[in-house]
């Protein structure tokens, strides 16, 4: 009578083991899927982020080029406007006559003089 009892106990043990194995297998599969999903999402997110950064770099490169062109344009205009010939034309147009000051009208200050005058005017010691 004891034999059939052992048989059914063995069968039960085998079934339990199989059930645990299946559950472990499913759990592992689920975990692998989860990891794969997370990695995929991270990959997609990084991909999207790098694409976005790439677009931003492209945009900034174009902006830099445009700003560089604007600077060049302004430098060109400034250089043209301040050229001696252009200034003379402007003086003529506005009837401005420029002449050098006579030497006796020129006051020359040395650094020491400025230092002294600053001290006299402000009561503080100036820095040379």
């Amino acid at each position: 009578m004891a034999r059939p009892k052992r048989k059914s106990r063995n069968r039960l043990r085998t079934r339990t083991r199989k059930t645990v194995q299946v559950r472990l297998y499913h759990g592992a599969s689920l975990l692998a899927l989860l990891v794969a999903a997370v990695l995929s999402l991270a990959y997609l997110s990084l991909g999207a982020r790098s694409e976005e950064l790439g677009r931003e770099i492209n945009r900034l490169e174009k902006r830099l080029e445009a700003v560089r062109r604007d600077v060049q344009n302004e430098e060109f205009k400034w250089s043209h406007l301040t050229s001696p010939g252009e200034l003379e034309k402007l003086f003529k147009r506005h009837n401005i006559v420029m002449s050098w000051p006579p030497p006796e009208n020129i006051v020359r200050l040395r650094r020491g003089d400025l230092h002294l005058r600053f001290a006299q005017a402000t009561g503080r010691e100036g820095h040379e």
Partner: protein
Amino acid sequence: MNDKRQGMRLILVAVTVALVWTGLGLRLAFLHLGDHEEKLESVRRTHRHQREVLVGRGRIFDRNEHLIAMDLGMKHVSVDPSLIQDRGGGAFIAHQLGRLLEVDPAMIFAKINRPGRKQEYVKKFVLEDSVQPIRAMGLHGVFFEDVSARHYPRGPLMSHVIGFSNLEGYGSAGIELRYDRYLRGIPGFRVTEVDRRGREVYSRRSIDIVPRHGADITLTIDGRIQHFTERALDQAMEETGALGAWAIVQHVRTGEILAMASRPTFDPNHFRTATDEERRNRAVSMVFEPGSIFKVAVIAGVLNERLFRPSDIIFCENGRWMHAGKPLNDFRPYGHLTVADVLKKSSNIGTAKMALELGNRKVYDYLKNFGFGVPTGIGLPGEEAGILRHPSSWTALSLSRICMGHEVMVTGIQMVNMMTVLGNNGFLIRPRVVKRVVDARGETIYEPDIEVLGRPISGATARLMVKLLTRATEEGGTGRHARMDNYTVAGKTGTAEKVIDGRYSRNHNIASFIGLVPAERPELSILVVIDEPSTRTGGAAAAPVFRQIAEPSLRYLDIQPIPRELAYRFGDEVPYFE
């Protein structure tokens, strides 16, 4: 019944979906399993984009860092005739473009009406400011293409020194040509992919070699002094009706060229319309017989050898002397003159007698040591060496002619550099126009220093020569028109007859003046040469131009006059001067 129809519909949808998916699957399998390399390459070609990343040329500045040459972003303005014809309004567009771009509207209208054309250029190299109003109008069928072009914001100012670069971006004259390797930079290279709208996909940029921008060049030329020089030359050209004129201003102690101008001139922004004569930098590339200004070099040699003293008397044959069977004439007849007066009155006979005492070989050696017969190495393309023949090929007459500036050819830069020797205690230094070259990272890659080439005469002789030359600008001297109120000028006039049809012509002269200022402590060495002026002599034509250049330049540089009571004390320290 309804269930049956619904079932049929479901089957139909399922079959359609199945067919579509099957088709797509087959197509996919065909693309992947078949010979797909060719197709893959075609797709890659469509998306791949490789191009040279162009860089602008470096900029050129004057010594005060004022911009002289630069690359400027500009636009080509074009129209799409087919688009405008479809939508109408061609006459209006032509009128507006013509008005804003200063182009004949009829010409634009003719371009718009060309059948079957997709693009017609209206105007190339248009400044950004001129494009803005057109863009604001939103005219259909009008397009703008980004281009970069060399531009010279100060127009013709110092055009002969800077030169120009051609439309391909290669230097073709002047500094642009000589320093092309520095200015041009190195273009980059990029291999990348674009999306279907032609936008670059940054993450697919596989090769990206960063371009290296061209280096910036700072010249020794001062824009202000250049302007004074050019203004004075323009006035001289107008007043004397000369064929041409050139002038050089050199800083004595450093050898730096502060101004170099040549007439006729051109605007480097429109170099294609300029003639060869206009483009020619006469200051370095035109050789000429210098005439009496050359006497300075010969007399300096004579005095350096101590063969004569300034107070020694020379008989000037009353204006006509037969030497080696040929007559030698003075401009005015003189009897007995001191050596100092020979220079002051510019006597040909007196100078010839002194040179004969020195002899052929020694005169030749002195002239060689002063730098004649070889290029100065200033660093400008097209510099001529001049002609100074070896004494073995001289005739019996040669020395008497060479000492008065004939039978010898020089350039303007050689002459001014010779004069600088006198102001520099006898040291010959190399003239230069470039102060420094700075690369795109801000590092100085070339910065020439003062280069002493030799010492043809002693310091005492140099100072004596300066002293003697100040007499030429005093009352009774040939260069009195170069005198200034507050400064003492040491200078010499020159009037050389030109060779026309193989003979010296009295009616075709080269008038010149060369001088140092202030004579007591020379700062500037200036040469003025005028080709065939109506007022023939150097004293009348070139000396006033010298003054017009020197006066504002000295004020601008804040070189203060030497007080009269302190002026000219160095006669004492010079041996054998009385």
